[in-house]
Structure formats: structure tokens, C-alpha cells
């Protein structure tokens, strides 16, 4: 019974933890502009993030070390540093976007301008990282994030023409009046939102923090293999809601209130309250993960003591980096940049930097020095290599496409 409970908790947490501000914004925006024609990107992204999360979870469980702890050993000081810098900048941008997302959710609930909420959110994030035990932190925000199921309920309550949605999903081409270039640009956005690097960085370090051993491997695999696809279904529901409500009206999603509007329209005030709780929890949980991921990455590159579980006084450099990261991200959002725009840039740029995260994982997951006979199977390697090729193509075309489409205008 306890095992069943633990297992249920695990994959429910994974569902809530899968979604963040990037998924909310990208899927809603894409649904409103392109209907369901980009729905195929979601499963492609989910399979990718499952594949690489499983690998990094396995590395953590078998070797007892986080994946990025091993990156420098495998790739050398210079390549490791370039990797660290790129993933740190992306994580910082993501953190800023998540903090903005939490603040926007609070604005929707309170009508107080989101910039006033930003410092409050930053302090809250820091207090949670400083004090709340690790597993509590993950479970609280993961489970609260399940409130985003409201999107699925709302889609059902909107009573859409399911056949039309399905046929939209089966015809991957831009709707009339939209250019192929913009369509591909947003395909990259949805892909980047599903495969955000900080998720994997955080996942592998949290495995070490929670002291996974080879025995925990089956459980962590199930969490990933059940939780992430269900999270992907919620992402599709968000896209569907926007496709049903906004696409026929030609409305473009430019604010978080529009992301949640379909739920309010279908389920009324109660629905709006539930979905706001979900948005708050998902973005807040992601802010925690991104802040920790920043600290993990730097501390692991330099070989410092790190970990949320230990007393902060025994890992002062890790906590100093974490605090600095949080302050930088807060400062970025306080410049009054539009949080939705920051989100869009963060997911597209993280798509461009994906190979930097995923290549080292694939290399380490094949190293018998660390994994013994738990290295990748041939099947995993074939699939992962295919994804790596895909991610390389994405990374090469992203920036030119961004310039050409003027960031999807």
C-alpha cells in the first residue's frame, strides 16, 4: 500500500512537474494561431525528454553522481565550461520567465500589478529552497500542479468538434494565411518547451540528492514513462482549448489571462480559481527547479560541495551561486520586460542550445566506468542518436529562423 502510494505520488508529481510557463504559453499561443496543426510536436518532445531523463536518472542512480558532475570529467575543462555557460544563461532566462509567470498568476488572482509581485515571488522561492525539505518541495508543487487538469476538463466542457481537432492534428501544415517559416518557428518553440534543459539537469541532481540507488531505478523510470506522457496530454489540452476558442475568432495569445481564459469560459469562476492554482504551482515549482539547476551546474563544474539536503553552511558556494542566480533573474524581470516575451525567447533559445545538454548525457550513459552493465541498450542508443541529430538540426536552424520570421511575427 505504501509502495503504491509512493508510486502514485511519484508519477502525479511528474505530471505536474512536466508543465511550466513555457509549455503554458507555447501551447496556448500555437493553438490560437495554428489550431492543432502543430500537435505532433508535443509527442516528439515528450519522447525526447523521457529518453534523456531516463538516461540521466540511471546515471544518478547507478553512479551516485549527477550527470553534469561527470560532464567535465568526460568532455574536458574547456568544452565543459562552454557547456556550463550556455546552459547557465538559458536556465537564468527560464528562471526569469518562471518568476514572471508566478507573478502574472498572482496578478490575475489579485489585480495587483505583476511587477509588485516579482520581489515577493523571489523571496518565496528563496525561502522554499532554503528551508523546505526536498521531497516536500517536489510533491507539494507537483501535486498542486495537477490542478492544470482543469484544461482537459475545460476542453471537454467546451464541447468541441473532436473530428475537426483530430483532422487538424493529422494535417501538419500551416493554416491559410500563415507562412511556413512562422509555423516551423513555433514548432521549435513547442519542442523547446517540452525538452527544456533545466528539467534534465534538475532531474539527475535530484536523484543524487534523494540518494537513489539501482533499486530506485524502476520507480524513477515508471514516473518518467507514465508521468511525462500524461503531462504531454495536458499540453495538448491547453493547445486544444486555445484552438477551439481563439483560432476561429483570430485572437492572438499575448497575455497569461488569455491562456487561462478558455477554462474560465467553460467552467466559470471555480474553474478559473482551480486553473490559477495550477498555473501558480507549475510555474513556482519550475522556478524552484531552475534556480536549483543553476546552482547545481556551477557547483558541479568546479567540484564544490552542493545539495539542497545538506545544511547551507556546509555548501556555502552552492548557496551563494543559487542566491546570485535568483537575484539576476529577478533583476531581469524587474526591468519590466514582458514575461510572456521572455518566456518565448527562453524556450526558443533553449531549443538552440539543446545539443549541449543532450550530447554529454548520451556520452556518459554509455560509459562503463560509471555504469557497469547498466549502459544504454542498442535500442536506446539508436533512438537517442536520432534525437541528437534532430536536436542538432533544430539548433542550427533556430537562430536564422528567428531572424527571418522576426521571432514569429
Amino acid at each position: 500500500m505504501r509502495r503504491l502510494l509512493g508510486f502514485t505520488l511519484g508519477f502525479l508529481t511528474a505530471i505536474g512537474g512536466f508543465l511550466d510557463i513555457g509549455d503554458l504559453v507555447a501551447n496556448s499561443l500555437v493553438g490560437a494561431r495554428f489550431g492543432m496543426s502543430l500537435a505532433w510536436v508535443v509527442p516528439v518532445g515528450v519522447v525526447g525528454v523521457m529518453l534523456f531523463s531516463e538516461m540521466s536518472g540511471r546515471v544518478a542512480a547507478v553512479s551516485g553522481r549527477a550527470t553534469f558532475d561527470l560532464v567535465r570529467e568526460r568532455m574536458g575543462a574547456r568544452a565543459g565550461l562552454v557547456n556550463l555557460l550556455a546552459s547557465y544563461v538559458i536556465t537564468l532566462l527560464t528562471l526569469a520567465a518562471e518568476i514572471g509567470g508566478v507573478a502574472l498568476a498572482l496578478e490575475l488572482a489579485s489585480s495587483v500589478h505583476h511587477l509588485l509581485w516579482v520581489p515577493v515571488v523571489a523571496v518565496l522561492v528563496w525561502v522554499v529552497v532554503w528551508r523546505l525539505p526536498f521531497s516536500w518541495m517536489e510533491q507539494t508543487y507537483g501535486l498542486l500542479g495537477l490542478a492544470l487538469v482543469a484544461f482537459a476538463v475545460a476542453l471537454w466542457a467546451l464541447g468541441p468538434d473532436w473530428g475537426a481537432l483530430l483532422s487538424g492534428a493529422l494535417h501538419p501544415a500551416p493554416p491559410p494565411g500563415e507562412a511556413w517559416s512562422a509555423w516551423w518557428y513555433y514548432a521549435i518553440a513547442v519542442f523547446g518547451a517540452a525538452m527544456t534543459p533545466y528539467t534534465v539537469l534538475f532531474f539527475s541532481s535530484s536523484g543524487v540528492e534523494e540518494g537513489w540507488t539501482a533499486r530506485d531505478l524502476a520507480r524513477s523510470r515508471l514516473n518518467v514513462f507514465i508521468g511525462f506522457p500524461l503531462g504531454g496530454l495536458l499540453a495538448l489540452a491547453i493547445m486544444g482549448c486555445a484552438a477551439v476558442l481563439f483560432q476561429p475568432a483570430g485572437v492572438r495569445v499575448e497575455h497569461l489571462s488569455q491562456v487561462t481564459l478558455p477554462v474560465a469560459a467553460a467552467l466559470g469562476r471555480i474553474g478559473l480559481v482551480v486553473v490559477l492554482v495550477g498555473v501558480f504551482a507549475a510555474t513556482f515549482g519550475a522556478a524552484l527547479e531552475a534556480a536549483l539547476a543553476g546552482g547545481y551546474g556551477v557547483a558541479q563544474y568546479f567540484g564544490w560541495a552542493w545539495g539542497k539536503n545538506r545544511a547551507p553552511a556546509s555548501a556555502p558556494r552552492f548557496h551563494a551561486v543559487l542566491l546570485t542566480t535568483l537575484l539576476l533573474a529577478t533583476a531581469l524581470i524587474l526591468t519590466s520586460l514582458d514575461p510572456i516575451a521572455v518566456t518565448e525567447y527562453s524556450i526558443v533559445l533553449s531549443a538552440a542550445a539543446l545539443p549541449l545538454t543532450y550530447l554529454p548525457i548520451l556520452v556518459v550513459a554509455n560509459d562503463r566506468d560509471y555504469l557497469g552493465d547498466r549502459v544504454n541498450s542498442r535500442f536506446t542508443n539508436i533512438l537517442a542518436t536520432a534525437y541528437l541529430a534532430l536536436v542538432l538540426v533544430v539548433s542550427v536552424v533556430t537562430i536564422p529562423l528567428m531572424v527571418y520570421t522576426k521571432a514569429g511575427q
Partner: protein
Amino acid sequence: MTVPDDDARPEPMRLGFTALDRQIYDADGRSVGKVDDIELSWDGTAARPVVTALLTGGAALGPRIAGRPGRLWAALLRRLRPDAPEPVRLPIGGVAAFRPAVRLSSPAPAEVWAVEDWLRDHVIGRVPGAGRADDNGR
């Protein structure tokens, strides 16, 4: 490049692979840092240079990173610490194991913890609750 183990020499020890950039733990299990560089000494009489110490710390890492990133790193470090810091030496005799991570047979020298101690004493340690660890909820 080989470790001086002349008569036996079962297989060459590839320093770049076995030692460089590995995590270092001291005898107390604390994370000391990474092997940022390796000190080779040659007194002119021996047949070949001998590995005498592992170097760690920012001052050892900078010169190893070639090109612009390395120059930037070195310049940044000069600004922060104008008194031309020396890297921390960990004599090779005190190394108990190289793989999977470098383990020292004694606690690390105090200068390794300079930044960590300063941050603990002046910033992190001053915040309430800094001394309390999570029970990890299990």
C-alpha cells in the same frame, strides 16, 4: 606521458583521462574541487619528468583553458585577486585513489577552503537556519 612506475609499467596511465578534471574528495569525504591541472617536475637528471602534485582552484584552471575564454578567466581572476594567486598544491603522495574519483588520504589543506570559509562566515552562515540540514523526508 606516464606515471613514474618504471620497472613494472603494466599499462601507461593516461593523465588526461585518469586524473585531469576528476572530482577530488578528501579523507573526510568533503568535495575539494576538480583536478584543474597537474604539476610535473624534472630535475634534469632523471630520464623523464615526474608527476609531483595535483593542482586545484581557479588559478590553476585559467591557464588551461585556451583561447579567449581562458584569457577572460585569467583577467577576471587578476581583477578579483591582484596578488597573483597560486593554485593549491595537493602532493601526489597524498592521493589514495584516482578512479572513479580522486581520493586524498588526509584532510585537504586549509587554503582550499578560503572562498568557502569566507562565504560561510560573511554571507551564507549569517542567514538564520544555515546550520540546519533537511531531513530528506523519508
